[in-house]
């Protein structure tokens, strides 16, 4: 045999099976491309100038791991389709006298050809699109872009390593499969008589229970911190549950339908129901995968786009005004009416002399403690906390400040309070601090003073408007130094807008002015924090923007995967259904009846994962909303909107893919007749 024999045989095999090989090569190329782009973004120094570039690089590095693992699993999955179709050919080769070694050599060359093609194709695509991706990202961050095309050798090296390893594993797997099967079984592997699927009630019911449990977890979760932990448990449960339900539950359901003779023996149901059982057995895993992928795409896009497009609202919640000043004090003297007026006058004076009068200004004083909520008692000793969900921040705010900021005219008797709770709810009529005072709640407020600190904090805050701040402080004096730390914080918040709003120099100069002029110390304030909305905005955009961007890239990868699974499913089913189609025709089904039956089955099989993904999303909604709180995103309506739009867009895309691939299926099914 000549040296070129095996490569030629391999190339021939690929050419003859191009209908299955071409999508595989394209898939591989797609994965290579995505991986390269992510590596490029992670390793390049495109963003060294931007804020949060390091965070972004870390996010992308994490993303590259996800893609790597996913590519590995997914390519194995698609490769198994290829192997199934090729086994017959290999069987023939071994009948014709080829040993397992020879076949392994063919496989080797096949893998080499596929690998070279897809890696080269993927890298070309990756390099071409990486610039686009970079520009897109820079744009999302709102930065200036340059238009130089650059190539990252490090990214290329990593791509070659990762995909070289994946292809090596694929080859190993194929060789082992051929190694452990006989020539005859290879020849027959495709047409091996299929056993009717047994309904596995236990697994089906367990799957339903798992899903129900995961849903229950997701819906009942109250606290964002707990949500983070529960989320991963719920995700794992949903994945396993989905596989169980799709594989076993669906077959069991078909069997149940078959038991109902009145329903089953109808022309419309008879063929559909019985073939569905088969279809589900064969496709359960694939459908479950599609469902999981769809859910991932939807969750990723809905949440990251919510964060990105909702960025402004997060920022304005977090930073109610252009300039947000927070002063802390050691004693109550600093928070006296006179001192408060003095320091505000000093700040105003500085602002006026530099940029003009502060606008939309408001200020409020507060006392803050944290503790665990137990019934209607706040327990300041955090060590006694039973669950993180019970942790609360308590703000005491004087009635005079509340009335002044909100323009209200409330009155309170001693021992009374107004209550505003920013999340969750508090139902009791009194609230008491363990080892401190108790308050009778006179009224619950619906609106409250904008406070960046409470919207940032993922703990729920209870805001108590009290008649006299000093009286409240006396009531809390006993626990002022719990555990050695000053538990009680006294602060003054002063927020205002300036025009124009991006005067970094002035803004940064304000704290220095307050210290240097000595007024801060004189009035009894210990520290001063200034947050500028303009400065913070960039940080937010770099984090949310890169999350959104990686969300888009991940979604693309998942989408490609879902489309590919669908395509292979249609092809392989088409081949398997050819003979069935013929028999039905001979026995007296019209083409229309067959087409209708096939159509209804395809539709069910196709849209089942989508429906299930939508269900997953509905139940994931509350828990993801809680997670978004960790990013200060507290706008439920907006998240509902991005989720709705994502689901709708995905459904449209999915329907388009269905339309395209179902034609492939029909062509495959009816192909046999043309050849006869």
């Amino acid at each position, binding site marked *: 045999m000549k040296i070129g024999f095996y490569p030629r045989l391999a190339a021939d095999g690929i050419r003859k099976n191009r209908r299955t090989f071409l999508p595989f090569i394209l898939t591989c190329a797609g994965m290579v491309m995505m991986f390269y782009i992510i590596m490029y973004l992670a390793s390049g120094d495109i963003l060294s100038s931007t804020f949060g570039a390091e965070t972004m690089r870390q996010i992308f590095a994490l993303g590259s791991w996800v893609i790597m693992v996913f590519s590995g699993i997914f390519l194995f999955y698609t490769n198994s389709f290829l192997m199934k179709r090729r086994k017959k050919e290999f069987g023939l080769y071994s009948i014709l006298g080829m040993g397992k070694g020879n076949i392994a050599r063919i496989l080797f060359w096949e893998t080499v050809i596929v690998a070279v093609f897809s890696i080269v194709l993927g890298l070309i695509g990756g390099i071409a699109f990486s610039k686009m991706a970079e520009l897109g990202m820079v744009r999302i961050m709102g930065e200036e872009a340059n238009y130089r095309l650059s190539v990252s050798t490090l990214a290329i090296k990593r791509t070659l390593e990762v995909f070289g390893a994946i292809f090596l594993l694929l080859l190993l797997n194929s060789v082992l499969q051929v190694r452990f099967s006989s020539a005859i079984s290879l020849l027959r592997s495709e047409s091996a*008589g299929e056993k009717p699927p047994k309904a596995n009630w236990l697994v089906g019911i367990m799957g339903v229970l798992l899903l129900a449990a995961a849903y229950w977890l997701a819906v009942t979760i109250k606290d964002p911190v707990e949500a983070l932990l529960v989320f991963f448990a719920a995700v794992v449960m949903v994945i396993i549950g989905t596989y169980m339900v799709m594989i076993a539950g669906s077959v069991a359901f078909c069997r149940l339908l078959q038991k109902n003779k009145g329903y089953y023996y109808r022309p419309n149901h008879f063929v559909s129901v019985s073939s569905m059982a*088969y279809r589900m057995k064969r496709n359960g895993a694939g459908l479950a995968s599609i469902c999981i992928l769809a859910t991932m795409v939807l969750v990723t896009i809905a949440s990251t786009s919510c964060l990105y497009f909702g960025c402004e609202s997060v920022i304005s919640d977090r930073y109610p005004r252009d300039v947000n000043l927070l002063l802390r004090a050691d004693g109550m003297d600093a928070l006296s009416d006179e001192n408060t007026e003095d320091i505000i006058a000093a700040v105003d004076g500085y602002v006026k002399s530099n940029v003009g009068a502060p606008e939309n200004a408001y200020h409020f004083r507060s006392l803050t403690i944290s503790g665990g909520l137990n019934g209607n008692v706040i327990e300041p000793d955090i060590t006694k906390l039973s669950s993180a969900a019970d942790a609360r921040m308590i703000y005491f705010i004087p009635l005079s400040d509340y009335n002044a900021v909100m323009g209200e005219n409330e009155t309170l008797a001693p021992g009374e309070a107004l209550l505003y709770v920013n999340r969750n709810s508090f139902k009791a009529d009194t609230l008491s601090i363990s080892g401190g005072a108790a308050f009778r709640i006179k009224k619950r407020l619906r609106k409250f003073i904008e406070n960046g600190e409470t919207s940032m904090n993922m703990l729920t805050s209870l805001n108590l408007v009290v008649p006299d701040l000093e009286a409240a402080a006396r009531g809390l004096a006993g626990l002022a130094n719990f555990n050695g730390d000053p538990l009680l914080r006294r602060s003054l918040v002063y927020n205002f807008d300036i025009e124009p709003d991006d005067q970094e120099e002035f803004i940064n100069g304000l704290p220095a002015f307050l210290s240097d002029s000595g007024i801060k110390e004189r009035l009894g304030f210990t520290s001063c924090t200034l947050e500028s909305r303009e400065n913070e905005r960039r940080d937010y955009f770099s984090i949310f923007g890169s999350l959104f961007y990686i969300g888009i890239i991940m979604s693309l990868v998942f989408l490609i995967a879902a489309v590919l699974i669908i395509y292979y499913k249609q092809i392989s089913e088409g081949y398997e259904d050819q003979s069935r189609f013929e028999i039905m025709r*001979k*026995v007296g089904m019209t083409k229309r009846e067959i087409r209708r039956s096939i159509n209804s089955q395809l539709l069910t099989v196709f849209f089942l994962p989508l429906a299930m993904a939508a269900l997953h999303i509905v139940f994931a909604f509350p828990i993801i909303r809680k997670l978004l709180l960790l990013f200060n995103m507290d706008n439920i309506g907006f998240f509902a909107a991005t989720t709705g739009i994502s689901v709708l867009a995905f459904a449209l895309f999915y329907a388009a893919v269905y339309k395209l691939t179902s034609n492939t299926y029909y062509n495959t099914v009816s192909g046999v007749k043309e050849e006869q």
Partner: protein
Amino acid sequence: MSILEVSGLRKVYSTRLGGDKVEALRNVNFTVEQGEYVAIMGESGSGKTTLLNILAALDRPTGGTVILDGKNLRDVKESAVAAFRRDNLGFVFQEFNLLDTFTVEDNIYLPLVLAGKSYKEMHSRLVPIAARLGIEKILKKYPYEISGGQKQRAAVARAMITEPKLILADEPTGALDSRSSDELLRLFTEVNSLGQTILMVTHSVKAASSSGRVLFIKDGEVFHQIYKGASTDEEMYQKISDTLTLLATGGNVK
């Protein structure tokens, strides 16, 4: 009364590009009487399968007519063809053509379900047929669990359950061992003796010799026919063999 009249049947296939034409059937004429059991023999390529496909309304002839029970197949609309096939014809194939997604019972019901019959009626029809064919015990099994002979009997049951005017059998013994073949042919004879008309296409002399009349097709024409009359299966076997020898050596019996 003849149940099937075939006259001047012609079928020409064109190759895909429309160039060469192949004449599969040239001029086929024969009739089948009610209650007859007819075998059609011929070498590969003689046009047997084409003939069967046309009789089954799976294919349309280029010329000539097929009249089944007084109805010209040409007049059956394309959309009604499947229903016509379902109501008037029963099929037994060499490869059984049972659907592996159904139990044996459901396979047998298939044509009736498509015709919209109720389960009760289907079941009452199945009971006597299953008893006669000896397949009561395997009704709940799946095709992959039963032997070839059993599969073919299930297929016969499926063909009979619609009480068709004509059963078309395409090489029914082709995939069976000799014992199963004998059993199937005995069944055919028995079913035929109860008045069922059967038309069988076969290669097998043994199978043909169980029929009442054998038609020989050569080069797209009915070349010769033998009536069984009062002869035994063995005598019939001998006659058929002689005819086949003549056919093969090119002798002219006419």
